[in-house]
């Protein structure tokens, strides 16, 4: 079902009529004929209420679930940062970063370089249990990025972090994504986070892409830069939040 190809030159993700229903008995589909594309190097945020199916959509792109019907074209080189760090407790931090990589000789050097990018080079020898939530999530980010993915899938990666750590993490993600330019799909319920990071924001509602907003505001963005507030109101309204 999921055609794993490297897509075309300028297109990383191409979804056509992707539909997902969990039981054949009911007619309800959590995703109903979803169409969207992500260009190479484009940062797309997908927002939606809890239970709207945004994580399911991400899992389909990750190949962790398959669509009931429809065409899914994604690059082979794709990695996920999950909501929880999901580090393997029995492996040291650096081993977690390079887990599963087989075609590189000096894994330690790769791990160290990747950890340095997220500011954790001196924790390479630690056990994951010793890390704080923010540190663990940065390790998860290093693990996803050191493979130089063509598509980076972020599933509410900052959801469990405190507000300050979250801002730091967003900064790290922004810097690293602009350096390596993977196509990114960020799943989040936080409109401000989507606006801070994304080139384009999609709203998932009632099993469909209900709204698509191109955020043409230069970075770094602060609340109030350009017409961010206007975008914010549009997005919140489509999510059923009335703001003044």
């Amino acid at each position, binding site marked *: 079902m999921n055609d794993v190809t490297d897509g075309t030159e300028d297109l990383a993700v191409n979804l056509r009529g992707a539909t997902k229903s969990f039981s054949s008995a009911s007619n309800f589909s959590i995703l109903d004929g979803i169409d969207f594309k992500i260009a190479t190097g484009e940062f797309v945020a997908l927002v939606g209420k809890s239970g709207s199916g945004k994580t399911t959509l991400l899992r389909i792109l*990750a*190949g*962790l679930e398959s669509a009931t019907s429809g065409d899914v074209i994604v690059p082979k080189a794709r*990695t*996920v940062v*999950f909501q*929880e760090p*999901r580090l*393997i*407790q*029995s*492996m*040291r931090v650096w081993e977690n970063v390079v*887990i*599963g*990589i*087989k075609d590189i000789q000096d894994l330690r050097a790769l791990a160290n370089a990747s950890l340095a990018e997220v500011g954790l080079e001196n924790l390479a020898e630690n*056990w*994951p*249990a*010793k890390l704080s939530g923010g540190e663990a999530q940065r390790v998860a980010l290093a*693990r996803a990025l050191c*493979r130089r993915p063509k598509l980076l899938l972020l599933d509410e990666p900052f959801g469990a972090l405190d507000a300050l750590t979250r801002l730091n993490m967003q900064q790290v993600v922004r810097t690293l994504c602009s350096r390596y330019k993977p196509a990114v799909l960020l799943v989040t319920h936080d409109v401000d986070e989507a606006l801070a990071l994304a080139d384009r924001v999609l709203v998932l509602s009632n099993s469909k892409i209900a709204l698509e907003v191109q955020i043409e505001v230069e970075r770094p963005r602060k609340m109030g830069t350009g017409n961010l507030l206007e975008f914010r109101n549009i997005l919140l309204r489509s999510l059923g939040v009335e703001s003044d």
Partner: protein
Amino acid sequence: MSVSARRLLLRLVLPILILVVWTWLAGSTLVPELTMPTPLEVLRQWKIMFDEDDLIVQIFTSLTRAMTGLAIGGAIGFLLGLSAGISEVVENVVDAPLQMMRAIPFIALIPLFILWFGIGETPKIVIIALATYYPVYANTSSGVRNVDGRIVECAQSFGVSGRELYQKVIIPLAMPTILTGLRLSLIISVLALVAAEQINAQSGIGFLLTRSTGYGQNYAVFACVALYALFGLLADLLVRALEKVLVPWRSGVALR
């Protein structure tokens, strides 16, 4: 006082108390004369056995039996537990028979074992293996089954699969539970040793014990039993050492 000195002291409190009560009890009129040696007399008895009965060789013989039986039983328990933990099909196939086998009082089978396996080392090792497979099986299977599926999914999404998935992810994460099983099996292997060594033993602690019982040498009986208790302590030390090697990462996860 340093933490390790304090820990050692705490560990010694109860054994010392027991030695004191034991010494007092052995010298009192509460127990019939000549039926309970004092700790000092046990030491003296060990010295006699060391001189007259090659005590070191006997200990070595007994421990070899226990470890061989445990290695076989533990390996079977581990492999079955791993398979049952991974696959529901395997669990459905093997679990009920293993539970039934566990309920069989293997000591009652000793006469049959002698008919089946003779009176050499084989029946002794079979008994110990039969007595020890179960804790390792049960703990391995539950340890593997309880590994967080999200972690496994994540490892798979980063290209870990097949043998590597078991070696690097599933077995290490199940290891604390597996070691709990091994700890129980180690103790049981010492208990089973007593039963096993009643089969025509010409050597080993069980042989000394049987012989001493036959001659009514109560002090020697006591000295042999005290040896088994020491084996129990050794078993515990062994598992603690294994824990340090196999689950070094746990110090940050565990409650303490």
